C-alpha cells in the first residue's frame, strides 16, 4: 500500500473544522506578533517613538508571547492533530476533547494577552521573578499549558486505540513522531507548570510573601530548552516524512527517523543550564555536564542532515540524473511546498552552528544576552521552523478547506519565501554582528554612556529596521495567501503528502517503540542532570524575594 489514496481523501468536515481552528489562531498571531516586531525595530532605530505612550516592553512582551508561545503551540497542536487524524484516526469523543483543549488554550491566551496589552505584565515572555505581573497573566499561561496537555493525552489515546486495533503492527511513522514530541512537551512543561502554579500564582495573589528566584529560573529553563525542540520536531516531521513525497521519492529510512526522534527526546531536557551559564549559585561542574548533554544533539542532527540529502539524491537519480550534482538541479524548485522548507533547512545550518557557540561553556560569555542571541533564534525558529510551517500550510490549509493550491498562489508563496530570506538575512546578520560587538538584547533605543562603541551599534539597529520592514511585507503577503487558501481558492482536493516506505525497506526494530524504555531513560537522564544541583540550589537558598511591581510600571 503506498497510501496515495489516503493522502487524497479529505477529512470529514467535523474533523477539518477542529484542525482549521488552530490555523486561524496561528495566522492571526503571525499578523499581531509581526506588527510588534516591526515596531520594535523602528523604536530601536532611534528614529521613531511609539504613539499613545505605549511602552516598548509591552510590545516586546506581546511579540515574545504571541510568536514564541502562542503561534508555535497552536500551529503545532493543529498540525499534529491533522497528522494523527490522517494516520490513526480520531473518534467523536477524542474530537470533543480536542475542542476542550482548543478553547482552554484560547481563553488562556486571551487572558494573558489582555493583561499584557493593558500594561499589567511588562515582564517579557520569560516572566523572570521577582518582577511581578498581574495574576491574570500567570493564570492565562497555566490555562494554555493545561490545555496543551489535554491535546497531548488525546494524541496518546488516539495511538493507543489504533494499536489495539492493529496488534503487532508498528505505529505509523508520523504518529510515532507526534507522540515523541508530545511526551517531550508534557515532561518538560511540568517544570514550568509547577513554577507557575506553585510559585507564581500564589505569590502574585499575595498568598505567599516571597518567591525563590533561582528555583523559578531553573524550572523555567528546564522547560525552555525542550520548548525550542518542541517547535523544531514538527519541522523535522515534514523534513523526514512529507518532503520526500513532495519531491516524488520515498522515505529514506523509517528506523533511522525514529531513532533520531528518540535521541532528540533523550537529550532535550537535561540541558537547561546552558541558558544559565553565567548565573551565580549553580556549580560550574554541573553546568559543564549539561553542556556535554546539550551537545549530544549533534548526533541526531547529523543523522537528519544525511537522510534529507540522501533522499534528495536518491530521488534525483531515480529520475535519471547520473552526474555528481545533476540531481540537485532536478529538485522541484518551483513548488513552494518544497521551496519554503528548503530555504528553512538552509537557514538551519548557520542557526545550528550559532547554537553550538551559544551552548559552549566559555564562548557563551561573549554572546550571552546580547542581540546575537536574538539573531540566532530568528534564524532557527523564525526562519528554519517558520518557513517549514508555511511550507506545510500551503497544502494543509487547502486540504482542510477543500480547496486547491493554485499556480498563482504557489508563485506568491515562492515570492513570500524569497522576501523572508532577504529580510531575515539583513536583520539576523545585523543582530549577530551587533551582538558580537556587545550590543544588548531586550533593549529599547538607548545611547547609554555614549562614545564610539555605542555609535557602532546604532548603524546595525538601522539595518535591523530595514530587514524588519522587508519581513513585515512578507508577513502581509503570507496573511493574504492564508486568506486566499481558506476562503477563495478554487474547490478541489489538495494532497496531504505523506511519503511511503520503500517496498524493500528493512524491518523496523521493535525496540524503537518500547515507550517504557525511552521514557525511563529520559527520566533517568533528567534525574542525573538535575537532582544534585537542584538540592544544592534549594539548600543554599538566600531569603526569598517579595513581588516587584513598580519596575514594570505597575502601581
Amino acid at each position, binding site marked *: 500500500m503506498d497510501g496515495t489514496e489516503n493522502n487524497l481523501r479529505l477529512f470529514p468536515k467535523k474533523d477539518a473544522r477542529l484542525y482549521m481552528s488552530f490555523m486561524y489562531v496561528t495566522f492571526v498571531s503571525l499578523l499581531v506578533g509581526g506588527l510588534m516586531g516591526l515596531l520594535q525595530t523602528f523604536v530601536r532605530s532611534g528614529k521613531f517613538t511609539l504613539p499613545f505612550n505605549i511602552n516598548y516592553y509591552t510590545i516586546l512582551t506581546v511579540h515574545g508571547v504571541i510568536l514564541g508561545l502562542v503561534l508555535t503551540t497552536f500551529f503545532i497542536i493543529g498540525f499534529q492533530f491533522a497528522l494523527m487524524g490522517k494516520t490513526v484516526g480520531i473518534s467523536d469523543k477524542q474530537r470533543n476533547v480536542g475542542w476542550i483543549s482548543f478553547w482552554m488554550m484560547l481563553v488562556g491566551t486571551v487572558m494573558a494577552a489582555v493583561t499584557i496589552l493593558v500594561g499589567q505584565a511588562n515582564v517579557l515572555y520569560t516572566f*523572570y521573578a521577582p518582577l511581578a505581573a498581574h495574576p491574570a497573566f500567570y493564570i492565562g499561561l497555566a490555562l494554555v499549558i493545561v490545555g496543551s496537555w489535554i491535546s497531548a493525552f488525546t494524541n496518546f489515546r488516539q495511538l493507543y486505540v489504533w494499536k489495539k486495533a492493529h496488534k503487532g503492527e508498528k505505529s505509523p511513522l508520523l504518529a510515532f513522531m507526534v507522540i515523541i514530541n508530545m511526551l517531550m512537551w508534557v515532561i518538560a512543561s511540568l517544570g514550568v507548570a509547577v513554577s507557575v502554579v506553585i510559585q507564581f500564582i500564589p505569590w502574585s495573589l499575595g498568598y505567599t510573601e516571597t518567591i525563590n528566584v533561582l528555583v523559578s529560573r531553573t524550572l523555567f529553563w528546564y522547560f525552555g530548552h525542550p520548548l525550542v525542540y518542541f517547535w523544531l520536531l514538527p519541522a523535522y516531521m515534514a523534513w523526514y516524512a512529507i518532503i520526500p513525497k513532495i519531491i516524488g521519492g520515498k522515505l529514506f529510512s523509517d528506523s533511522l527517523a525514529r531513532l533520531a526522534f528518540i535521541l532528540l527526546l533523550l537529550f532535550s531536557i537535561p540541558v537547561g543550564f546552558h541558558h544559565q551559564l553565567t548565573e551565580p549559585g549553580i556549580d560550574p561542574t554541573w553546568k559543564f555536564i549539561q553542556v556535554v548533554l546539550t551537545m549530544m544533539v549533534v548526533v541526531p542532527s547529523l543523522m537528519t542532515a544525511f537522510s534529507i540529502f540522501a533522499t534528495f539524491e536518491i530521488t534525483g537519480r531515480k529520475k535519471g540524473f547520473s552526474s555528481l550534482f545533476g540531481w540537485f538541479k532536478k529538485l522541484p524548485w518551483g513548488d513552494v511546498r518544497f521551496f519554503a522548507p528548503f530555504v528553512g533547512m538552509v537557514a538551519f545550518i548557520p542557526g545550528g552552528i550559532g547554537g553550538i557557540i551559544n551552548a559552549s561553556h566559555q564562548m557563551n560569555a561573549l554572546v550571552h544576552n546580547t542581540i546575537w542571541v536574538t539573531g540566532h533564534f530568528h534564524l532557527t525558529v523564525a526562519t528554519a521552523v517558520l518557513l517549514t510551517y508555511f511550507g506545510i500550510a500551503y497544502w494543509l490549509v487547502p486540504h482542510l478547506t477543500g480547496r486547491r493550491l493554485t499556480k498563482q498562489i504557489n508563485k506568491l508563496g515562492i515570492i513570500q519565501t524569497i522576501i523572508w530570506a532577504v529580510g531575515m538575512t539583513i536583520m539576523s546578520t545585523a543582530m549577530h554582528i551587533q551582538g558580537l560587538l556587545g550590543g544588548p538584547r531586550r533593549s529599547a533605543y*538607548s545611547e547609554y554612556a555614549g562614545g564610539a562603541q555605542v555609535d557602532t551599534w546604532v548603524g546595525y539597529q538601522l539595518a535591523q529596521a530595514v530587514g524588519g520592514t522587508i519581513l513585515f511585507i512578507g508577513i502581509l503577503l503570507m496573511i493574504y495567501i492564508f486568506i486566499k487558501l481558506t476562503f477563495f481558492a478554487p474547490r478541489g482536493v489538495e494532497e496531504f503528502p505523506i511519503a511511503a516506505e520503500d517496498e524493500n525497506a528493512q524491518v523496523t526494530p521493535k525496540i524503537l517503540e518500547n515507550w517504557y524504555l525511552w521514557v525511563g531513560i529520559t527520566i533517568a537522564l533528567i534525574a542525573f542532570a538535575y537532582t544534585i544541583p537542584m538540592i544544592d540550589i534549594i539548600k543554599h537558598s538566600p531569603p526569598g524575594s517579595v513581588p516587584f511591581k513598580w519596575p514594570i510600571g505597575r502601581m
Partner: protein
Amino acid sequence: MHLHKYEKVWLTFGMASLVIFLLVIGFAAFWKGTHPQSHLETIDQNNVEAHDSFKPENLGLTEVADGKYKVNMVASAFNYDFGVDKDEKPVKTIRVPQGSTVLFTITSKDVVHGFQVAGTNVNMMVEPGHISRYEAVMKNKGEFTIVCNEYCGIGHHQMFGKVEVY
C-alpha cells in the same frame, strides 16, 4: 538497523569532532579554569550593606596590589552603584590602567539584572540573594560600555556605566 556505508563515515566523523570539541572545552574549563561566572556565595538582598564588600565606603574601585584591582558594585533598578568620588558625586566611570587584573563583584538589591562590560568576556547575571564575581585582565585600551543585559523593568535600557582602560 541498517546504516549506509557513507552514513557510517559521516556519523563517525561527526562524533569524533564532537568528542574533540568537548575535550577542548573541558580542558579549558577544568585545567585552565575558564569556567563561566558561577560564584556560590549568598547574601540577604534586603540588607546588602551588612556584607563587607557592599558597605557604602567599600563600593567602587580599589587597588589591592600592584596592577590588581577590585570593583564592588550594587545593582538596583535602574542603576549601578559604584560608590562616590571625592566630591560625593556618584561614580559613573571606572578607570584602570591597561593590563590590570580586575575582580568585579556585584549583587542586586531588588530584581534580576545583567552586568556586561561590552566587548569583553565580563558578562554575568546578577540576582537578588546571590553574589556574582568575575576576574578579568583588561588587555585592550579604550572605553567599554557597561550594560545591564537582563531585562529588569521599563528603565532597563537606561541602566549603564563605563569602564575606561588607559
